[in-house]
């Protein structure tokens, strides 16, 4: 009996220990601020043809692309790497999809063919990152910086410098449609988080990725194939950026080669860090990365909602994130704890 009562409490405790709990707290706080300003902020209504409508739904929709690239980024960061190219790969994905669809018939087949093509192209570009890192042995920062810069150029070449538009109903549905009243794009992003999370944790991939991130030498001597693993995570990062690019462009069915996915790699890195994965590699947390992505989307929406002037909004964002990272930092928390502990100690000295 007693044990039954203890178990859920234990589970709750272990969640409270996770670093991403601070991300959840931050999301709640931001929403609270919005509710104070506008009591109906959280209201969700059922719009025409059964779609859910509301600010929260908007947040989830806009969080989706960052969620996807954050999952890939999380794996890359766990190997002690970083992937700066994902934002540019999103532009490449959009360019490939729009260019293909602009000359293809408006059929579901064409939509899926475009998706497949995008996955092949971005997967191949991810493989280039992976080869530069694992086989050539360049630093991940430099390797992926190359594609970060070259990617947008490639996107421009693909579209001939135009912001290509296309029409395809199914493709549009990916970004703007609903299942069970929830935006398709969020459902897919959630599915990606769950599937990748399960694959990584149910197979031995997660352990191996952590091992090479923590101690590459020891991992190699334990027989782990570092090259293949690095290649895998960078390809995964590329493919997920491809997905994100598709959804980012499908909303408006236009690729903007210089704006699509612009600087989104930084949001993804931020989401990963907020989720409790150290940039030094090792232990990673995919759930945390997803929560981080939602937090960033919430923050973006809040900035707009509170009417922070657009020139001040980066500063606002920065303040929130710095505060959050400080809260998460073990060292800062220890400092606070020591202060608290130091006070009564002083009193004892006086008493003695």
């Amino acid at each position, binding site marked *: 009996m007693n044990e039954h009562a203890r178990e859920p409490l234990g589970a709750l405790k272990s969640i409270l220990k996770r670093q991403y709990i601070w991300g959840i707290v931050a999301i709640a706080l931001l929403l609270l601020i919005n509710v104070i300003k506008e009591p109906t902020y959280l209201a969700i209504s059922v719009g025409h043809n059964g779609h859910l409508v509301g600010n929260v739904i908007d947040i989830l929709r806009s969080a989706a692309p960052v969620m996807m690239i954050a999952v890939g980024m999380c794996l890359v960061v766990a190997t002690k790497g970083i992937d700066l190219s994902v934002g540019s790969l999103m532009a490449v994905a959009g360019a490939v999809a729009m260019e293909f669809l602009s000359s293809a018939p408006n059929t579901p087949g064409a939509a899926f063919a475009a998706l497949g093509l995008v996955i092949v192209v971005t997967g191949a570009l991810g493989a280039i990152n992976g080869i530069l890192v694992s086989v050539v042995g360049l630093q991940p920062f430099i390797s992926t910086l190359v594609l970060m810069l070259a990617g947008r150029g490639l996107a421009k070449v693909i579209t001939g410098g135009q912001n290509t538009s296309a029409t395809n109903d199914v493709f549009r549905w990916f970004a703007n449609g609903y299942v069970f009243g929830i935006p398709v794009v969020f459902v897919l992003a959630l599915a990606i988080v769950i599937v990748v999370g399960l694959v990584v944790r*149910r*197979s*031995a*991939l997660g*352990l*191996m990725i*952590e*091992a090479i991130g*923590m*101690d590459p*030498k*020891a*991992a*190699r*001597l*334990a*027989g*782990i*194939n570092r090259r293949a*693993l690095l290649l895998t995570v960078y390809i995964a990062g590329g493919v997920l950026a491809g997905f994100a690019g598709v959804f980012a462009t499908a909303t408006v069915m236009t690729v903007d080669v210089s704006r699509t996915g612009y600087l989104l790699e930084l949001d993804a890195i931020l989401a990963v860090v907020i989720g409790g994965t150290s940039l030094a590699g*090792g*232990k990673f947390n995919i759930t945390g990365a997803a929560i981080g992505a939602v937090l960033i989307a919430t923050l973006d929406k809040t900035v707009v909602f509170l009417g922070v002037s657009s020139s001040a909004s980066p500063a606002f964002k920065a303040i929130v994130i710095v505060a959050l990272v400080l809260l998460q930092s073990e060292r800062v928390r220890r400092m606070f704890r020591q202060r608290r502990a130091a006070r009564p100690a002083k009193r004892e000295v006086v008493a003695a």
Partner: protein
Amino acid sequence: MNEPLPIVEMNDISISFPGVKALDAVGLRLFPGEVHTLMGENGAGKSTLIKALTGVYKIDEGEIRVAGEPRRFTGTADAQSAGVSTVYQEVNLCANLSIGENVMLGNEVRGPLGVNWRATHRAAHDVLAKLGLGHLNTKLSLSTLPLAIQQLVAISRSMVEECKVLILDEPTSSLDANEVEQLFGVIRQLRDQGVAILFVSHFLDQVYAISDRMTVLRNGRFIGEHLTRELPRAALIAEMIGKDVASLNAAEAGERRDPRTGTVPVYEATSLSRKGALEELDIELRRGEVVGLAGLLGSGRTELARLIYGADKNDTGTISLHGTPTQIKNPAKALSKRIAFSSENRRDEGIIRDLSVRENMILAVQAKRGWARPLSRREQNEIVSKYIAALGVRPTDPERPIRLLSGGNQQKVLLGRWLATEPEVLILDEPTRGIDVGAKAEIMDYVSGLADEGLAVVFISSELDEVVRQSDRIIVLKDHRKIAEIDGGSGTSTDNIVTIIAEDHSADEYAGLAVREEVAS
């Protein structure tokens, strides 16, 4: 005989690190115009003593006198300004700066408009010229020089400020014979100028070629100070490894396993070599036999082990397993061929600090199976509880991060990791280093038991008595060469091996070194 006053005198120095007494009342005297060598095996406390002198480590007890004055340095820079310079094993220079900039870094000649580069380079040239390096163009990038010359540049750097004591920590470990000779030329020149030189090297021949006096340390204790010409090699080696234990072992080495000599060897390699690490040698490993690799540090013990495991690639040599020719290109391949290797560097190449005991233990098995075939939690628990019980890992909690375990228990977990892969050949490089006596004995007993069960074991240890006690056959290495292969058993003692190493001079002609006349035993 009237000895001059020592320039540096360290008396009764003690330093403790958490859990270990690194130095226990150690003394050292350095005299002007003399090359003094610090001798000792790994973990003897050589580096710690150097760092105590330069103030990198704080000493708990004892006193340091420089030129008669009690001194406590606060770090390398402080020591250097007092005339005590250190050149470390890895060259501490900036490869992307010019030679002159490296020499004068921190001592640039300043004019009214900041650094006067022309004067700086001229000064650098003067310093280099003193060491016979006047021909170098100081404006060239340091990276254009071979490593040996870089080492000399590092020394000249310490000569910029007045240098009374020069500490050279393993300066020759990456140099070839000619480069060593050039370095020695410079050392002798400095010695003749009255500099006191403290030299650390693992190459016995070099030590005898260059040094006037030596201090021997063992396990953090001072063993003796001798004039080089009065200390024969065999006596030196005995002091380094501790000969008092030798007699004790002869008694224990009674029962021997019966190696199945008639059978095909599990592992056989002919003309195995790797440039700069190991000269061509043959080796075979048989079921149920413990092969010990004996030799001093740097003799090629670890290099041989790494070649067998594929951790480093061999340049030459053919390998066959059970008589079938094969290639072992990397550790993963070795594991799949049922060879396992436990590295001497437990901290960096063994444990993965942030993973739990369970994860550390199953890692190699999992890597062997591949990522797509994960061990179920039940299988993991079976493996882990089996080896925690068999090896006596304490504490027994498998979910504890391994970094929280003691060294001996970490080593047991690693042993479990390799045994779980069900190897036929198990290479243990210094499995007993830095662990307490109790755990040492447990691990040694377990290894013996493994050989009885039919494993081929390769055993490496700096403690020669351990090698003698454990091994059925001993391969003796020196200066990256195999110099002998002897049977274990009651006829063998540490003294035999010491004599073999001491009397082997074939490297001397090879290295072209002028070996001083010495009193061989």
